[in-house]
C-alpha cells in the first residue's frame, strides 16, 4: 500500500526541544552580556583603543609567523622522526623514540625557559674543523640564541615530537597493498613514501595537525616568559604599566580567536584538497 500524500497534510516532526534550549541559551547569554558590559572593569573604550595599536599588531604578526614557522619545522622534523620510527634500522628507531620521549615528556614551558637560558649551560657555541684546531665559528650563546631563536627552537622541537606520532599514525593507516603496488612498479622506497603513502596519509594526518596548529598558536603565548615579542608579551607589557589587565586580555583573546578562525579556514581548504578521490562524488 502506498500513502497518497496529495490528499492529506504532511506534518513534519516538530522540534519543541530545540525551541526550549534556544530560549534558555539566549536568556543566559543576555544575562552574561549585561553583567559584562555593566562591569566597570571591562572598559570597551580601552579595548578599542589598544586593539589596533602598532605594538599589538606587531605582536599579532609575530605570533602568526612564530606559529607558522614552528609548524613548518615541526611537520618537516615530524615526518623524518616518523619515518625513522618505522624504519628497520634499530639505531634510527631508538634515536626517534628517545627524542619523542624527551620532548613529549617534559612541559613545553620548561623547554622554552631552557632554550631561553641555554647560555647558562653552554656559555659559548664553538665549531672547529676536527683534528686541525681551525675555528670556524665561535660566539657567546646569548648572542646566537636570542629570545626569538630560543622560542622557535623550543616550539618547533616540541612540535616535532607530537607531529611525529600523528604522522606515524597516518602512515600506518595506509593500506599495505599500496606500498606493494608501488614496489611492483619499480618505485623506490623514498619515492613510494613521497608519492603514494604520504598523500594518502594526509587525509588522516590533517585534522589532528589542524588541532596541533591551533594549540601551537596559543602555546606561543608561553614565550612571553623569555620576552618573545609575541602578542601575549605585547599586551602583558601594557597591563604591567597601566594595570588594565582585563581589557588587555580581551584584546589578546579577540586576536587569538581571529587567528584561529583564519587557520580553521585554511585547514578546510587543505582537507578538501587531500580528500580528492576518496568519495564517490569526488572533486574532479
Amino acid at each position, binding site marked *: 500500500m502506498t500513502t497518497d500524500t496529495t490528499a492529506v497534510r504532511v506534518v513534519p516532526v516538530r522540534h519543541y526541544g530545540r525551541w526550549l534550549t534556544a530560549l534558555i541559551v539566549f536568556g543566559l547569554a543576555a544575562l552574561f552580556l549585561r553583567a559584562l558590559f555593566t562591569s566597570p572593569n571591562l572598559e570597551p573604550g580601552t579595548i578599542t583603543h589598544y586593539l589596533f595599536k602598532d605594538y599589538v599588531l606587531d605582536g599579532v604578526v609575530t605570533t602568526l609567523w612564530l606559529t607558522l614557522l614552528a609548524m613548518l619545522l615541526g611537520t618537516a622534523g615530524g615526518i623524518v622522526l616518523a619515518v625513522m620510527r618505522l624504519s628497520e634500522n634499530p639505531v634510527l628507531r631508538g634515536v626517534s623514540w628517545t627524542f619523542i620521549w624527551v620532548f613529549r615528556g617534559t612541559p613545553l614551558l620548561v623547554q622554552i625557559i631552557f632554550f631561553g637560558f641555554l647560555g647558562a649551560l653552554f656559555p659559548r657555541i664553538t665549531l672547529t674543523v676536527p683534528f686541525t684546531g681551525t675555528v670556524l665559528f665561535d660566539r657567546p650563546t646569548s648572542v646566537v640564541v636570542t629570545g626569538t631563536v630560543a622560542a622557535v627552537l623550543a616550539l618547533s622541537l616540541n612540535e616535532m615530537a607530537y607531529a611525529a606520532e600523528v604522522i606515524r599514525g597516518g602512515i600506518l593507516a595506509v*593500506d599495505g597493498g599500496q606500498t*606493494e603496488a608501488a614496489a611492483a*612498479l*619499480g*618505485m*623506490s622506497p623514498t619515492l613510494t613514501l613521497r*608519492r*603514494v603513502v604520504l598523500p*594518502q596519509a594526509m587525509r588522516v594526518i590533517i585534522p589532528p595537525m589542524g588541532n596541533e596548529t591551533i594549540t601551537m598558536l596559543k602555546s606561543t603565548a608561553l614565550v612571553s616568559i623569555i620576552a618573545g615579542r609575541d602578542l601575549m608579551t605585547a599586551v602583558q607589557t601594557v597591563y604591567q604599566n597601566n594595570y588594565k589587565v582585563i581589557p588587555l586580555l580581551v584584546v589578546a583573546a579577540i586576536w587569538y580567536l581571529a587567528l584561529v578562525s583564519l587557520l580553521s579556514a585554511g585547514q578546510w581548504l587543505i582537507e578538501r584538497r587531500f580528500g580528492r*578521490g576518496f568519495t564517490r562524488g569526488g572533486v574532479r
Partner: protein
Amino acid sequence: MTPMVRAESVTKRFGPVEVLKGIDLTVRPGEVACLLGPSGSGKSTFLRCINHLERIDGGQLWVDGELVGYRRHGDKLHELKAREVAVRRRDIGMVFQRFNLFPHLTALGNVIEAPVRVLGIPREQAREQAMRLLDRVGLTERAGNYPSQLSGGQQQRVAIARALAMRPKLMLFDEPTSALDPELVGEVLDVMKGLAADGMTMVVVTHEMGFAREVADQVAFLDGGVVVESGTPTEVLGNPRHDRTRAFLDKVL
C-alpha cells in the same frame, strides 16, 4: 633461448612454516603459465618471489637470465640494495587480486605515475602512451575518474594498463578476477587474452579453468609448496596423472 622465469628448488619459509618446499618451474618468453592449486598451497608466495616482494630462502630463481635479488660480480654474488631491487622490478608488471590502484590519483594519473617518476619519461609523452593503453583496455572515457568512481572490472583494467605502462617483459597476475562480480570477470579476461595473443610472457594464478584451457601454454598444479605436476592444459586439466590434481579439479570444475 634464456627462459623468462626459471625456478629450481625454490624454498620460502615464514617463521617456522615452510611455505614453498622446492618449486621447479620454467617459463619461456612469450609463454603463458597458469598456476593452479588449493588455497594456501603457496601460489601467491611464489609469484611474489619472482619480483622479489618476498625473499627466497633456498634454491635459485632467475628472471630473464638474472638471479632474483643478486648481482654477480666476478665469482661473488652480492645481495641487491632496495634501490637496485626497485630497478629490476621495472621490467616485471604485477596485477593484484584487490587491484591496489592509487586512490588519490585518477585512472590516467595511476597509469602515468611510474613512467614519469621512475623512468623519467616527459609527462606529455607518458600521457599519450597512457591514453593508448587506456584505449586498449577500453577505458578512454574513464581517464579522468578516480578509482572509487570505477567498477571492479574497470579498476582491474586500469591496473593492467598501469603495469603495461612500464613496458614490462613479464606480467604476473595474482587471481586478477577473484574479487570481481561474475559478470565483470569476462571483460578482464578478454584484456588478458589480448595480451597473450600479442606475445606477452605471463604467469597467472587463477581459478578460471576456461582461461587456463584456452590461453595457457603451460599449467602447473601446486599443492603443499611443491609443483605436483605441470604440462600442457590438455595434459594437466584433461588427463591429470596425480590423485591430488584430480581431486582438486573435481572440486573446481
